[in-house]
C-alpha cells in the first residue's frame, strides 16, 4: 500500500527527474516533522531518564546535590542489605501467585461468558467494573474491607461463626501478602477475562460441533480446541501482565506500605522508600537497575510476539 501511494504522490508534481526526487524528500521531511514532538517526548522523558537512572546508580546523587561517580558502591550496599533479598523474594512470590490467580479467574469468567447465557452483554460489562475503576480506589476499598475493627470481611466471617476474633489481615505477617494478592487479582482479572473471551470468540463453532459428534467431553473440548486456539493470546497476556505485576506499586503502597516488617516489601516499594523517604537516589536507582535485565528480557519477548502478530 505504501508503494502505491508513493506513486500517486509522484504523479502530482511536475514530471521532471528533479521534481521526483524532491517529492520524495519532501514526503520524508513532512513525515519527520509530524513525528518530531513524539520523538522529543521519547528522548526527553523516556530515553534520557532511562540512561540517567543507570548513571544515578553509579553516583552518590542526593536531592539538591550534583552527585559524584562512586563506582559500584551503591550496588554493594544494596546487595548486602536484607531488605533487598526480601524484595526479590516478595516480588517473585507476588508476581507468580497474582498472575496465576488472575489467569485462573480470568479463564473461568471467560468460559462462563462464552456460554449462551441470558443478558450476556450486561454481565460482560458488569464483570469488567473492577478493571474500569481507578486502581487507587480499589485498593482503598479493600483496605477498608480488610479493616480489623470495622471491616466487612471480619464482620461477615464472625457473623458466620467462621472465626472467633478479628484477623488483622494487613498487619499480620502470615496474611499480609495473600491479602495484597487477592485485592490485586480482584482489580486485574477482568483484563484476562476480556482478552481470553475475545480469543474464544474467534474459534470456529464448527470445531466444537464436530468434536461433539465425535463424543468429546467438555473437558476434552477445552483441552484440545479452546486452549490451542488461545495459545497466542495467552502468551501475550501472560508476558504483558507479568511485566505489569512485577512492577505493581499501588497495591502494596496503599494496603501495607511494604510491611509488616517487610513481609510485602516488593522492589518498587523499596525503590520508593530508598529514593523518596530516605532521599538516597543513587541507591534507589541501583535497586531498579538490578531489576532491569529481567524486565528488558520480558519486554523484548513481548515486543517480538506482538510484532510477529502485526506482520502476520
Amino acid at each position: 500500500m505504501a508503494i502505491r501511494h508513493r506513486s500517486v504522490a509522484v504523479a502530482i508534481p511536475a514530471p521532471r527527474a528533479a521534481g521526483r526526487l524532491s517529492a520524495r524528500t519532501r514526503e520524508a521531511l513532512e513525515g519527520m516533522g509530524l513525528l518530531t514532538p513524539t520523538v522529543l517526548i521519547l528522548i526527553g522523558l523516556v530515553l534520557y531518564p532511562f540512561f540517567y537512572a543507570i548513571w544515578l546508580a553509579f553516583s552518590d546523587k542526593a536531592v539538591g546535590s550534583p552527585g559524584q561517580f562512586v563506582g559500584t558502591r551503591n550496588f554493594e550496599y544494596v546487595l548486602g542489605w536484607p531488605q533487598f533479598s526480601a524484595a526479590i523474594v516478595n516480588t517473585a512470590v507476588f508476581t507468580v501467585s497474582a498472575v496465576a490467580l488472575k489467569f485462573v479467574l480470568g479463564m473461568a469468567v471467560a468460559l462462563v461468558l462464552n456460554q449462551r447465557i441470558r443478558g450476556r452483554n450486561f454481565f460482560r460489562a458488569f464483570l469488567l467494573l473492577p478493571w474500569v475503576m481507578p486502581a487507587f480506589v480499589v485498593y482503598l476499598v479493600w483496605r477498608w474491607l480488610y479493616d480489623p475493627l470495622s471491616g466487612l470481611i471480619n464482620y461477615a466471617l464472625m457473623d458466620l461463626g467462621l472465626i472467633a476474633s478479628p484477623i488483622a489481615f494487613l498487619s499480620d505477617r502470615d496474611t499480609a501478602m495473600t491479602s495484597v494478592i487477592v485485592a490485586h487479582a480482584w482489580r486485574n482479572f477482568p483484563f484476562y477475562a476480556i482478552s481470553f473471551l475475545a480469543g474464544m470468540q474467534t474459534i470456529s463453532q464448527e470445531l466444537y460441533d464436530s468434536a461433539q459428534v465425535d463424543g468429546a467431553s467438555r473437558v476434552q473440548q477445552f483441552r484440545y480446541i479452546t486452549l490451542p486456539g488461545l495459545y497466542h493470546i495467552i502468551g501475550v497476556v501472560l508476558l504483558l501482565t507479568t511485566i505489569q505485576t512485577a512492577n505493581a506499586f499501588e497495591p502494596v503502597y496503599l494496603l501495607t506500605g511494604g510491611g509488616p516488617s517487610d513481609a510485602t516489601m516488593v522492589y518498587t516499594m523499596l525503590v520508593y522508600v530508598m529514593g523518596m523517604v530516605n532521599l538516597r537516589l543513587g541507591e534507589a536507582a541501583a535497586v531498579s537497575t538490578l531489576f532491569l535485565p529481567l524486565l528488558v528480557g520480558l519486554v523484548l519477548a513481548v515486543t517480538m510476539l506482538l510484532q510477529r502478530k502485526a506482520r502476520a
Partner: protein
Amino acid sequence: MRESLSIRATTYALLALFVLMVAIPLFWMVTTALKTNKDLYEDFSYLPRRPTLEHFVRVVQREDLLTNIRNSFVVAATTTVVTVVVSAFAAFSIVRYRYWGRDWVGRLILFKYLLPTAMLFVPLYAIVVTLGLGNTLKSLMLTYLSFTVPFCTWMLMGYFRSIPPELEEHAMVDGCTKIGALFRILFPLSAPGIVASAIFSFTLAWNEFLLALVFTSDHSTMTVPIKLSMMVVGDQYIWGQLMAGAVLASVPITILYFLGQRFVVQGLAAGAVKG
C-alpha cells in the same frame, strides 16, 4: 440432555459467584459512603439504616476535595489534548509516510508502552526538580506524556492501518495535499478511534498514582488519588469520607469508559463493514 443441563446449572452458579465477587466490594464502597458513623463503627449493619450524604458534604467542605478534583481534571484534560494531537500526527506519520528511522520510533514506542513507570520515576523526579517544576501541576502534565503519547500512538497506528489509504489517495489525485487529506479524510473517518484514545489518555492521567505521589507535596497541588491516600493515615474514623471521595473519583471514569466502549465498538464495526 443431562450433560447440557448440569453444564447450564454450573454456568449459572459460577456466574452468580462471579457477580457476587465483583458486586460486594462495590456495594460496600457505595453503602459506606451513605452510612452514618454510628452505623459504621458502633452499631454494625450491612445496609445503611439512615442513609445520609453527610460524608460527601464533609469530604468536599472539610477536606476541600474539590480543589484536588480540579487539579486532577486540569492535569488530565491538558494531558489529553496534547496527547491526542501529538499522537495522531505521530501515528499518521508512521503509518502513511516512508522515510528512514520510522520503524525505530515504532519500536521505541512499543518498548515504552511496556516499560513501567516504576523504572523511571527516580530519574524523572531528579529531572523535574532540576527544571524547577517540583510540586507543580506542570510536572505532571509534562511527565504524563511519557506514557500517554506512546500508548495513544500505538493505538492510533492500529486504527489508521485499518482504514484503506485509497480514499486519501483519491483526494490527493483531486489536488489535496497529504496533510489536507489527513484532516479531511483520515481524521473524520477515525473519529471513534480518536475519541477512544482521548478517553484512554484521560483515564490514564486521572488514575496515575506513583508520579503524582512523588512530585507533589501539598494539598493545593495534589491530585485526587494522592489526597485520598493521605487521608488514610490522618484519622481512623474517616472511612465514610474516604469512600465518598472514592465514589466521586470513580464516577467520571466509569461513565467515560462506558461511553468510550460504544465508540470503540462503533469504530470496529464501521471498519468491518468497509472491509
